């Protein structure tokens, strides 16, 4: 039965949320600009409107989750993003797999943030919430799903499948509900995809807060006062956005097979750029608080960071990137709406800024080279240039679209080698930023002139040089540019650690945020330099084959072919592919497919033998075995060093009917490096093309060859019963026992031969791993021989790529330290704001 109730509730909530957002915006506008006497009325009115909006916003999310959770496949969203086999935590990911769901996530975050702001602000509630309510109206309009004539506003997540698709089945039976959904994109079936999108969208949502304070400050002519409440939120936003970026990078590292954590893909760039600008903005805001300079640049940067978040949304969701990105959303026809959303806030911000520009206080005095303002300003400029360098080429598809809009033809394409292109700039910018943090921090905490600076920096410099020398010697860093990176990174760490040490000794830990974040930056720099600059493909030119075209021999083959059971040398290791495995519910280890027989039920198999792990019996022969995501195959690859077993890696791949082969890496983590491996091609078992018949007449006890396998015919055995075939009186059934040897593995193949009256039945034995099918063609009593018919396909194999990533842990630790630094800074700045607010000086 079709349940239209939930969908109707959801749709109603969407409309209510949209209307109440507009009402709240109107109310807060009146509240902000009303006379003192009328304010309480408008305040109550606007708050009620926003509360209604909050309830509606959360109801949208609840309704959509209800649809997914209860497998209501009559709804298009559940059908296209979820399936019966999904465990609950992946249902959460399927909630935001689609665009509509991710907009809902964004809406819910804004609701929660709005409620927090209402209750933590006194003076700022009006103007800030006005901006919030407007943003919410735009966001909710994206999922409105209203069609007026040819104009489509928003794409509703609550449409029924029969309205979304015109399959013929709906003409026969309009109440048809599909049995199962098409499932969640397997790449998103990862724990990081459960927490990464909420983090990222919280980051997106929070960039609105400093922007809203700034807009409020301009509109109410509090040109300087907005900085204090905006600062802790700006730092919070940068922290969350940074965390989102890192989670995305980590997710890419553990689930995607493009070989690393960062690929300069447009989708990644689109988040990286606003983050850089926001970080630059935080620095100028802090400078302003200390010395009343850099207010205008703070304003420009805060506006830019918010608009860039909207631009990122536009890039990723409008379909303009097309083929330029690996993972952009499908075009839902929202590009126009997204563009209006971005241009509206850009216009408002520019208008307010220009109108009030000449009233914004500036400091007339020229910043001295020995002032912290000067160095921080240089740092912020460098960050802005970094952002500029990334966003410009990322927008190439947009430039083309603009040129074509005016009738021109532009065939510009993104740089062919994206990683090389971005790295050559970003690396050097990062070196400059790292050095500036070291110098800047000394200026920050001390009055400096040239002599004092030299004295202060000499010690950290010497220590940094010594440490760098050690790193260069032991890490074998012989490339000149990497030597510079190492120097810059260690100098940053040492100099900031010096500051950190003094601060903690002298006063409190509360002030240490900056130096901690900068230490993190230095470590990230060194970690990236090693793990990317010195990453080494070790599955390299291993085939030993020569090709018909001689020029191909000069090319480096970066992948290695592993036949099942055949030991293959991969640099220091000997790797042996041992077959496919499945993940079983309740078992700490993977189970080889040879032990399982698959049933027609989803995620269920029957145990073909007892399944034992570490002397514990998990399933007996014949038990039903519950599987986790049965479409996932884990390829067991054992690694040996000098005949000693070292470890096993199980890179995953899934054959997905919608997306083809999906592959996820598996890495061996060492303290100083990762061995990162993934499967790049696999054998297809479906529909094997068996080669021509080969016939062998063999006596019991005799050996013969099937393909390259030594095979021993151990004899025949008369059977009294066979699984799946009812034997009658007078039937004769004979099983032939063949032992096939493949390297160190012995496998048994047992084809069966049945004689019933004058007819002959043959049950072949098939082994997919060996790619062999054997039938007993005939039994020859006169010579006491069996005649076997053998067909071959090919042995199972995987094509593997293995990469060593040195010192990647320094990178991860660096990111964590940086995030901790942000948290310390948030605490300090929020504490400051709270104290001022409680003194009633909030708007001072």
């Amino acid at each position, binding site marked *: 039965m079709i349940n239209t109730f939930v969908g109707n509730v959801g749709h109603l909530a969407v409309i209510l949320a949209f209307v109440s957002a507009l009402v709240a915006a109107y109310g807060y506008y009146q509240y902000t600009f009303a006379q003192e006497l009328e304010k309480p009325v408008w305040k109550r009115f606007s708050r009620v409107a926003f509360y209604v909006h909050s309830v509606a916003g959360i109801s949208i999310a609840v309704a959509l989750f209800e649809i997914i959770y209860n497998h209501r496949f009559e709804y298009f969203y559940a059908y296209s993003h979820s399936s019966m086999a999904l465990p609950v935590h992946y249902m959460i990911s399927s909630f935001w797999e689609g665009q509509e769901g991710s907009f809902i996530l964004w809406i819910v975050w804004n609701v929660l943030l709005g409620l927090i702001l209402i209750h933590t602000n006194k003076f700022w509630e009006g103007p800030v919430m006005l901006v919030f309510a407007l943003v919410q109206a735009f966001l909710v309009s994206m999922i409105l799903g209203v069609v007026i004539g040819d104009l489509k506003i928003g794409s509703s997540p609550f449409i029924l499948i029969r309205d979304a698709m015109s*399959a013929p089945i709906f003409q026969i039976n309009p109440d048809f509900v599909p049995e199962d959904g*098409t499932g969640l994109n397997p790449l998103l079936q990862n724990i990081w995809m459960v927490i990464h999108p909420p983090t990222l969208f919280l980051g997106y949502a929070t960039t609105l807060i400093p922007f809203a304070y700034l807009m409020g400050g301009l509109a109410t002519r509090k040109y300087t006062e907005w900085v204090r409440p905006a600062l802790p939120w700006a730092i919070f936003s940068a922290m969350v956005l940074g965390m989102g970026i890192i989670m995305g990078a980590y997710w890419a590292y553990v689930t995607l097979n493009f070989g690393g954590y960062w690929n300069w893909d447009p989708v990644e760039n689109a988040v990286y750029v606003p983050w850089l600008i926001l970080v630059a903005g935080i620095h100028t805001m802090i400078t302003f608080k200390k010395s009343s300079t850099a207010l205008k640049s703070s304003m420009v940067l805060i506006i830019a960071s918010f608009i860039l978040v909207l631009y990122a949304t536009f890039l990723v969701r409008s379909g303009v990137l097309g083929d330029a990105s690996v993972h952009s959303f499908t075009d839902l026809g929202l590009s126009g709406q997204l563009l209006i959303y971005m241009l509206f806030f850009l216009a408002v911000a520019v208008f307010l800024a220009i109108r009030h520009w000449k009233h914004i206080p500036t400091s007339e005095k020229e910043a001295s080279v020995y002032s912290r303002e000067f160095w921080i300003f240089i740092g912020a400029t460098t960050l802005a240039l970094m952002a500029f*360098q990334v966003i410009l080429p990322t927008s190439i598809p947009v430039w083309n679209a603009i040129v074509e809009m005016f009738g021109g033809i532009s065939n510009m*394409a993104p740089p062919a080698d994206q990683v090389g292109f971005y790295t050559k700039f970003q690396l050097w910018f990062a070196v400059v930023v790292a050095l500036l943090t070291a110098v800047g921090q000394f200026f920050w905490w001390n009055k400096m002139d040239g002599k004092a600076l030299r004295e202060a920096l000499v010690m950290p410099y010497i220590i940094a040089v010594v440490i760098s020398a050690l790193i260069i010697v032991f890490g074998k860093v012989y490339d000149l540019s990497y030597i510079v990176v190492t120097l810059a990174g260690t100098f940053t760490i040492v100099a900031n650690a010096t500051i950190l040490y003094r601060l903690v000794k002298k006063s409190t830990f509360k002030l240490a945020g900056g130096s901690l974040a900068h230490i993190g930056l230095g470590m990230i720099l060194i970690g990236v330099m090693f793990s990317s600059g010195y990453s080494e493909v070790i599955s390299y030119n291993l085939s030993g084959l020569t090709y018909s075209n001689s020029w191909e021999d000069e090319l480096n083959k970066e992948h290695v072919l592993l036949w099942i059971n055949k030991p293959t040398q991969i640099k220091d290791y000997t790797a042996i592919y041992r077959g496919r495995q499945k993940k079983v519910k309740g078992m700490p280890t993977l189970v080889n497919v040879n032990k399982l027989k698959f049933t027609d039920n989803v995620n269920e198999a029957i145990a073909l033998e007892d399944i034992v792990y570490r002397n514990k019996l998990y399933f007996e022969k014949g038990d039903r075995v519950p599987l986790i995501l049965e479409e996932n195959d884990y390829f067991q690859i054992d690694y040996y060093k000098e005949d000693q077993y070292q470890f096993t890696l199980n890179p995953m791949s899934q054959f997905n009917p919608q997306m083809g082969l999906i592959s996820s890496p598996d890495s061996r983590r060492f303290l100083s490096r990762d061995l990162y491996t993934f499967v790049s091609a696999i054998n297809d078992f479906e529909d094997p093309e068996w080669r021509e018949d080969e016939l062998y007449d063999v006596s019991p006890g005799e050996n013969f060859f099937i393909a390259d396998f030594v095979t021993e015919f151990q004899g025949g055995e008369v059977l009294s019963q066979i699984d799946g075939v009812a034997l009658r009186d007078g039937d004769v059934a004979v099983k032939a026992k063949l032992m096939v040897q493949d390297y160190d593995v012995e496998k048994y193949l047992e084809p069966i031969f049945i004689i019933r009256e004058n007819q002959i039945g043959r049950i072949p034995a098939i082994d997919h791993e060996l790619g062999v099918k054997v039938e007993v063609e005939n039994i020859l009593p006169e010579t006491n021989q069996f005649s076997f018919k053998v067909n071959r396909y090919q042995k199972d*194999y995987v094509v593997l790529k293995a990469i060593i990533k040195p010192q990647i842990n320094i990178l991860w630790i660096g990111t964590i330290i940086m995030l901790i630094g942000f948290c310390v800074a948030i605490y300090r700045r929020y504490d400051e704001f709270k104290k001022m607010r409680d003194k009633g000086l909030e708007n001072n």
Partner: protein
Amino acid sequence: MKKGHILGLGIIAVAIIIIVSMIGDASTYESFSTAKAMKMKGEDKPIHVVGELKKNISGTVEGIEVNPNKTSFYFMMVDNDGTEQKVFYNEPVPPDFSRAEQVVVIGSYKNEELFVADKILMKCPSKYQENEISTAGM
């Protein structure tokens, strides 16, 4: 000159370097014939070519030759102008390659006969466009 001005000039200089380098490093979309003409002129810069895999009359993809160790392969591609071209890719066959509706190859001509792709982007039939619903279990 004030320090501010020097700084401003510096920023503008860096911005110009960034723009020039972007224009210099940006690749272009070409057809096989224009790409070949570029190669003849001695330009080796990698370019983008958009097209489809070559199909026979019954609609199945033809011309994919995988090398014996399965780590590289050749295929036949037809660009948007209808030019047929043999392409080499030094990677295993990407999953679902033969189902791609559209392929973009990034690379350049090795010689007059052979185009070598450094990277392949594929557009596969999106699941959103699928109009077939499994009607099993009705």
